[in-house]
């Protein structure tokens, strides 16, 4: 362990230092509280052994500072106190010390207290590791909960949260958004013809295409079974229509065979567009309904098309 000694008496300090080094620990020495505090802040110290009375900053003040200082490790704090002085020991413990050593130094006692210190600091270190691990797992779970596992796109939960943010931006900063709802045409028939595994593969390929072709700032989500949602910031309906038309064409060009399609030989998508504009008191739900209605019109109009 790395042990910091704060002791103003040179003789006691030297004896303590040699005793600690003899037990196989590394030693840092300070002749008063302020110097100890300086050293403490520069180095990751496992144990502080501090005298009670020192000129300038005394042991109590040093202990309080050590305890208030945010640190990755938990420093074990040992007070040096005269054998007869139990009230000092108690005050020290209340100030945040873990234990005390009596003066003059008893080396067996020092050894025992350092064994305890090693145990406690190891436990704290483990605790810190576990905490970090837990934090990481929490982050992973947070991310996973917002991803669709099949396509790796954002899911409904993610979309819901993003739409809330977006709504606030429209109101506060006057941003505008186009929202597109896409649906793979005759997907049920595809599944019935080729099986669900093949259907999953189509979902993955279409999702990847949409994600690859989206421009910076656009976001794609898996909305439902074979439905995808795109959020296109700062797009008019006309430009958003061009974007979606490009995507529709790209899906068609994937040329995934679909013999039960009805009107085409390959997998296609239809899309419906709606807008969220500043100054309108439209709710997100209304916009989604509008996009859904547009999608319905695209389907009615013969599919493999974009409608507004």
């Amino acid at each position, binding site marked *: 362990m790395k042990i910091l000694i704060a002791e103003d*008496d*040179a*003789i006691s300090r*030297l*004896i303590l230092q040699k005793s600690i080094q*003899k037990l196989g620990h590394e030693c840092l020495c300070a002749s008063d509280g302020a110097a100890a505090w300086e050293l403490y802040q520069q180095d990751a110290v496992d144990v502080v052994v501090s005298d009670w009375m020192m000129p300038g900053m005394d042991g109590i003040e040093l202990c309080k500072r050590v305890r208030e200082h945010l640190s990755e490790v938990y420093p074990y704090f040992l007070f040096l106190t005269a054998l007869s002085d139990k009230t000092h020991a108690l005050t020290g413990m209340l100030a945040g010390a873990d234990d005390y050593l009596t*003066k*003059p*130094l008893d080396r067996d006692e020092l050894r025992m207290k350092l064994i305890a210190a090693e145990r406690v600091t190891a436990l704290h270190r483990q605790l810190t590791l576990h905490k970090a691990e837990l934090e990481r797992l929490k982050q992973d779970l947070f991310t996973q909960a917002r991803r669709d596992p099949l396509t790796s796109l954002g899911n409904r939960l993610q979309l819901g949260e993003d739409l809330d943010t977006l709504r606030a931006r429209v109101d506060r900063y006057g941003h505008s958004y186009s929202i597109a709802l896409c649906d793979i045409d005759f997907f049920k028939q595809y599944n019935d013809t080729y099986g669900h595994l093949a259907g999953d593969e189509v979902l993955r390929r279409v999702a990847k295409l949409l994600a690859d072709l989206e421009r910076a700032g656009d976001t794609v989500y898996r909305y439902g079974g074979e439905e995808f949602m795109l959020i296109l910031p700062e797009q008019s309906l006309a430009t958003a229509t061009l974007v979606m038309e490009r995507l529709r064409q790209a899906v068609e060009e994937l040329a995934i065979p679909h013999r039960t399609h009805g009107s085409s030989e390959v997998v296609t998508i239809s899309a419906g567009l709606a807008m969220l504009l500043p100054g309108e008191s439209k709710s997100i739900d209304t916009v989604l309904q509008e996009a859904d209605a547009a999608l319905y019109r695209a389907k009615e109009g013969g599919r493999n098309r974009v409608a507004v």
Partner: protein
Amino acid sequence: LRDLQEQGEPDLVHELIALFLDGTPPRLHAIRAAADRREGPTLAQQAHLLKGSCAGLGARPMAEICEELEALGRREDLGQVGSAVDRLSAEYEHVREVLCSDYAGTPA
């Protein structure tokens, strides 16, 4: 103390004795000055410091007189401090003689 001595290191016992012999006279002086000026807190503080050194080296009678002085200083009970300081000085002379005769001959 000798048990702490590591092979190849400068002689720890000599180092400690040197620290003690160098450090004690100024402290005795400070204790006497505080006693003469009737400064209880300063006396207590100085006596406390010296007590630590004495106890560390195993000079128990000196440590005991220091403790007595520390208590007297803290209580501002300064009637008897003069004689206690005299006893402390005498005890120091005794300790110094013992230390010098015991260690003077051994190489540093």
